[in-house]
């Protein structure tokens, strides 16, 4: 089983390489990266004019299984992943049941083993049933192989509980991912608080509801010495807090979702519920801050926060519609369109945000193309444009924020563990 990828522009953030090279894949690993490899291979892919980079590592995905298989399953979600160039993902634990025990992890692992189309890693919850009160047994979770713990979807409101969680996780060298939201400040809001929410007559969510919790959790991380990763940051103040924490040398990392650097709250004037998510689309100024944070490295990773919801939960009144949008199939193209094409990130820097950095944060051996690493590779046509349409999406749910928009960059091949798992038809 071997694949030779010829003449592609190889982007390897692990080795800081951006050059036209050949890649030889053998037995699930990258065996050689060099110019003009002539070794005979079973399959040959001509990648001239194409970008060859590590498969995306998306550290924020809601696969909904077990419990809400009508929205998404491990199978359909990972299928969407490989269509979008994602070869590894971290499944969020807010399922039913929540991933809060060794037993539930084993249940999920069985499903993954049987049905996953790419590498699916597991995050456990911080508290039992994600109720914010009783801490899970991190030792057993770690033993079952979770890469991180998070109550994502909710924030841990109690400072004491969060502090204990960080201490316990630190002992196990386990990452804590924090969904930062102070619900008491979010005020039952459904979109960003500002002039747009005033015009639409919708209840607004202030930046404060996010960044005040970011500030608290960074402070707790500092006190406990634990590593913390701030999920889906969306506003200027959060970016500034993370930048300041990094300056102090704290173990703080952060991610941003494509919709938060591509879209602002002004898009909501039509009450499109496919633009309703939490945290919400923020102001233009916040979008600029997120872009700046991605450019200067304050924000380490791009993660989709893929959150599938059925039509029944979305095609209703804005106030009542569920929060969340899907993103696995569009995150790469949105990143190319909004960041590379606009000159904010080089390809190499983009590959760091999409693959290398999240791998390092999660402690997995992914996100690089150096010889010996796992052969998770994507080949993309960087200049081809496509229009996002519900019919073209393979995710079970179609609630994309980018429906109807034209994006640049098409995934032609997704290679996972040395096998072509997706090829553009």
């Amino acid at each position: 089983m071997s694949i030779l990828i010829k003449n592609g522009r190889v982007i390897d953030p692990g080795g800081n390489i951006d050059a036209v090279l050949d890649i030889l894949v053998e037995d699930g690993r990258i065996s050689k990266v060099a110019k003009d490899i002539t070794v005979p291979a079973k399959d040959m892919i001509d990648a001239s004019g194409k970008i060859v980079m590590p498969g995306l590592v998306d550290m924020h995905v809601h696969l909904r299984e077990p419990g809400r298989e009508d929205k998404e399953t491990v199978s359909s979600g990972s299928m969407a992943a490989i269509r979008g160039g994602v070869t590894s993902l971290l499944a969020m634990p807010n399922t039913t049941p929540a991933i809060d025990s060794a037993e539930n992890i084993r249940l999920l692992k069985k499903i993954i083993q049987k049905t996953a189309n790419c590498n699916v890693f597991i995050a456990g919850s911080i508290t039992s049933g994600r109720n914010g009160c009783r801490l899970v047994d991190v030792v057993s979770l770690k033993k079952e192989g979770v890469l991180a713990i998070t109550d994502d979807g909710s924030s841990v409101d109690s400072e004491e509980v969060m502090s204990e969680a960080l201490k316990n996780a630190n002992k196990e060298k386990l990452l804590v991912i924090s969904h930062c939201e102070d619900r008491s400040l979010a005020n039952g809001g459904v979109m960003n608080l500002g002039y747009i929410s005033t015009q639409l007559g919708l209840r607004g969510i202030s930046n404060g509801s996010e960044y005040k919790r970011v500030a608290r959790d960074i402070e707790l991380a500092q006190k406990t010495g634990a590593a913390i990763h701030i999920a889906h940051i969306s506003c200027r103040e959060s970016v500034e807090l993370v930048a300041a924490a990094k300056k102090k040398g704290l173990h703080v990392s952060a991610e941003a979702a494509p919709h938060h650097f591509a879209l602002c709250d002004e898009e909501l004037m039509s009450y499109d519920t496919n633009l309703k998510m939490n945290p919400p689309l923020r102001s233009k100024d916040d979008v600029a801050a997120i872009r700046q944070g991605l450019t200067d490295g304050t924000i380490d990773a791009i993660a989709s926060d893929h959150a599938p919801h059925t039509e029944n939960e979305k095609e209703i009144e804005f106030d009542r519609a569920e929060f969340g949008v899907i993103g696995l199939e569009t995150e790469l193209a949105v990143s190319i369109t909004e960041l590379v094409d606009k000159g904010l990130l080089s390809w190499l820097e983009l590959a760091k945000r999409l693959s290398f950095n999240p791998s390092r944060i999660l402690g997995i051996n992914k996100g690089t193309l150096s010889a010996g690493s796992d052969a998770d590779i994507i080949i993309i046509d960087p200049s081809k444009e496509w229009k996002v349409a519900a019919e073209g999406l393979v995710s079970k749910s179609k609630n994309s924020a980018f429906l109807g928009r034209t994006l640049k960059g098409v995934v032609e091949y997704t290679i996972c563990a040395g096998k072509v798992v997706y090829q553009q038809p």
Partner: protein
Amino acid sequence: MVNKNPAWTRKDLLGLQELTRDEIELLLKTAESFKEVISREVKKVPTLRGKTVVNLFYEPSTRTRVSFEVAAKRLSADVINIAIESSSVRKGETLIDTGKNIEALKVDIIVMRHNCSGAAVMLAKNLHASIINAGDGWHEHPTQALLDMFTLKEKLGVIEGLKVSIVGDIAHSRVARSNIWGLTKLGAHVTVCAPPMLIPTGIEKTGVSVTSSIDEALKDADAVNVLRMQFERDTENAFPKQLEYFKNFGITAERLKKAKKNILVMHPGPINRGVEVSSDVADGPNSVILEQVTNGIAVRMAALFLVSQANEHILKKNTGVKAKNEKVLVK
């Protein structure tokens, strides 16, 4: 003869923010004709004979519903009232399904009141029937603002250059928003006056002045539109106590002494006497509150007439059917 007046081309009336000045003026002008109709002995015209209007109300409302019902009946339309308990909505069918079912009954116009902002916009996008927004959440209540503007124009001649103050819970008021859009488009100077926590973020960007001083709001104003304080909806505890509100923001005869002598006092109703306005003012010479109610009929007749007419043209164009008996009215 070519019609130089701008035509009404929208199948729906969802809010005043999306309308042009010309469209708002056409609505007001058309309403003038209907005001004449409703002052006749036979207050009914056959214009919408054979049309069906459904009043779909997800929020209890007597006055707006009755006003639309009277308006539709005076246009000879058939009217059906549907009241849906909002609390039961979650379990029941979706709004779009309800709308499609009503449309399947061959209904021409749906007048909808809903407690969620944007509900009318959503329904209009999904149906061929005309939608008239009779109030959606905190978003818009276009016919209320139109009747307020109609009353201003009737009483004061023009709207351009008028100073109009809106007092009350601006943050949660669709009446305030629609009035702000309409009045500013027609060139009035609008001031909103409320306790700071009831002034929504960025409202000054609409071009209004903002104050929390009632005396400042009344000073030099040609009209004051007093909003109903909805203490029953206070889920945020943002409302000051009723008495305190009256003390600081209530419109009283005492306060009016410092205002223009002929200042118009308006209120969308129903009034909380002694909360936002004192009884002597509500019943006094400056009050045009009951005239607003009468004008509401004329404005709603105009809205029903215009959307119905426009939608017939749209539907005909879409189906490609040119009426065989089409007659160009030249003689």
